């Protein structure tokens, strides 16, 4: 089934857009997402792909055009990163509150400053409370597959919440791997033409959307949005199962390896998951009881699934690819809150790694395991994250 092509993460996203029968794309170039813009617009321009591409003059306009089109009843896509995603911030909230099932690829790149081209999750984490489903792919194959799954989930009438599919800048966006690309016919078995089900600008049914909303109803609109987001958990599970049946590639909102009997579990997201999993396999072959719980769906956050995955662990190490300035990383906080569900008393430690494109090597992951286990042996309590691979001598302070 499908055709094997050598694709990087950005190209895989472009195929995901085409196979999802997206009708309108509006996006603005920004490193490391630019090849998505180039690929899709070129395919449309050379009539290899029948869709409309709006060459907007900013990311803010990109998402604005997308929600304009989505409100008029077509399937839409945009992509961005870092500065661009920050510029979209105002509109991401409007998209989700309007219950428009748009899908966006985020090619994660550190948010300034300092100015940086390389990967971390500080861009997408600014969006965590904007009401979008957030899926973290670790490879080009997942990037393609998650695009199709994203549309089927966002557009489900129980959900009607937009989705961000996140890939790590350069680590995934520019990594070429063999990718199984479904044929048009195969893809159609999973995703069909768009049928809008919610708010539309329709001259036969004239009403206004996105108006000033008073305290009398604002809370209820947000709760309805929250329920849509929560419904997405079950719908995602259904879509993953359906996808696996058709294409043979299985996914989950949390993907675990070794957690059943592991004493120490690392929780992580995105491209580093591959390295962590590799280290887990190595350590297990040395007889160490370690595991990985990889969060695929950061929103809606899989509290119960994470609680289940960590219930037997004595030590939990959470790696955030964002600094959590002045507190802990966001993934750590979510994991800690989830562990309360199972009543777990495991020692949990927060690690900050891989900022601004710094590599997360096997050694980095081994250091995380070692550090977490030694702290846990003493039942140590940490009041701040452990910055791993930090060049202490380069950290400057006054006083």
């Amino acid at each position, binding site marked *: 089934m499908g055709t094997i092509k050598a694709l990087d993460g950005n190209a895989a996203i472009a195929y995901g857009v085409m196979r999802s029968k997206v*009708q*309108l794309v*509006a996006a603005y170039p920004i490193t490391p997402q630019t090849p998505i813009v180039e690929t899709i617009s070129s395919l449309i321009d050379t009539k290899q792909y029948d869709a*409309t591409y*709006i*060459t*907007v*003059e*900013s990311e*803010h*306009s*990109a998402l*604005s*055009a*997308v*929600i*304009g*089109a*989505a*409100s*008029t*009843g*077509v399937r*839409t896509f945009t992509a961005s990163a870092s500065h661009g995603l920050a510029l979209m911030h*105002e*509109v991401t909230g*409007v998209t989700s509150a309007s219950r428009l099932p748009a899908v966006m690829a985020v090619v994660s790149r550190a948010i300034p400053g300092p100015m940086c081209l390389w990967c971390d999750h500080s861009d997408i984490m600014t969006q965590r409370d904007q009401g979008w489903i957030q899926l973290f792919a670790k490879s080009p194959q997942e990037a393609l597959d998650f695009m199709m799954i994203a549309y089927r989930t966002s557009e489900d009438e129980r959900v009607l919440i937009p989705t961000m599919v996140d890939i790590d800048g350069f680590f995934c966006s520019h990594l070429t791997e063999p990718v199984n690309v479904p044929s048009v016919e195969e893809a159609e078995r999973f995703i069909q033409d768009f049928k809008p089900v919610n708010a*539309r*600008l*329709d*001259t036969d*049914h*004239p*009403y*206004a*959307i*996105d*108006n*000033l*909303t*008073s305290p*009398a*109803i604002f809370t209820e609109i947000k709760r309805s949005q929250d329920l849509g987001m929560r419904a997405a958990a079950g719908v995602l599970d259904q879509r993953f199962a359906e996808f696996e049946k058709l294409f043979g590639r299985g996914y989950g909102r949390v993907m675990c390896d070794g957690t059943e009997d592991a004493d120490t579990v690392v929780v992580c997201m995105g491209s580093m998951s591959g390295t962590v999993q590799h280290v887990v396999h190595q350590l297990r072959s040395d007889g160490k009881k370690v595991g990985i719980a990889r969060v695929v769906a950061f929103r809606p956050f899989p509290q119960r699934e994470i609680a289940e995955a960590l219930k037997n662990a004595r030590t939990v190490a959470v790696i955030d690819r964002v600094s959590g300035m002045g507190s802990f990383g966001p993934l750590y906080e979510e994991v800690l809150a989830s562990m309360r569900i199972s009543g777990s008393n495991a020692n949990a430690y927060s690690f900050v790694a891989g900022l601004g494109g710094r590599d997360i090597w096997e050694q980095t992951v081994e250091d995380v395991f070692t550090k977490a286990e030694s702290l846990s042996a003493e039942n140590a309590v940490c009041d701040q994250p452990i910055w791993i691979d930090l060049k202490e001598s380069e950290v400057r302070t006054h006083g």
Partner: protein
Amino acid sequence: MAKLDLLSKGLTTCQGCPMELIGRAALEVLGPKTITMTPPSCSAILTGSGDETGWGIPSVQTVLMSLPAFASGVSEALKIQGRNDVTVMGFAGDGGTFDIGLQSLSGAIERGHKAVFICYNNEAYMNTGNQRSSATTLGASTKTTPTGKKEVSKNIDFMLLHTPLTYQATASVGNIKDFKRKLAKAASKDGPCFIHVLTPCPSGWKFPTDQTIQIAKLAVNCGAWLQFEREDGKITINQKPADFELIHDYLNRQKRFSRIDDGIRARIIAEARSRYETLQRLAELACL
């Protein structure tokens, strides 16, 4: 046949509001097959709040910065759906057009989407209570320029002369027939159109509510507002200013100019003259 009502009568715009009048006149021309966007502004009062809306057509309150981009998306989506019978109407004030929305407008114009962008110019941020915008006339006092604005207004019409608008026009609420004619022309075009309408605001400019139309007419007569249109590379001046000295009368009738001295008056008149002279020269060309 009973006339369709497309804008409610019971709207909470100020007494004598010219923006509402422009909205009403626009719908008389465009009819029910129109989708409109308003940014947060006075025109958002037409779009409504809570579960109520004033429009009898589909409408959106967009974010202030990117109404034209939203309109681009709507316009292209309609094209995808084969809907050639629907007009996309952007309805923004001077803040959403001259200032925060300018980039988005320039992008939408350059890309050539079929849409009509109406700018009702009341020369300040009126919905937030009268703060100066780049459209505010030199010398006018606003809440952020209590002693009078120090700069001349941005000449957005001249700026847009160099963009690929299919049709561009200025209009005045003082001449509704002319506005309607221009809007009908814009709606018939298959590309981006811009209509810039002078809408004197009784609340912000501080004149009696029954004088809205008179002030708008006087603005045209005295040359403070120029009436022209651009089509097929050619500018047509619709009405010649009668006498620039009438600007004194125009200024005297608005309390927002009560503090200006003779020097500012002279500069306002000189600016109006120079804009008209430039326009006359531009009208002799056929290359815009």
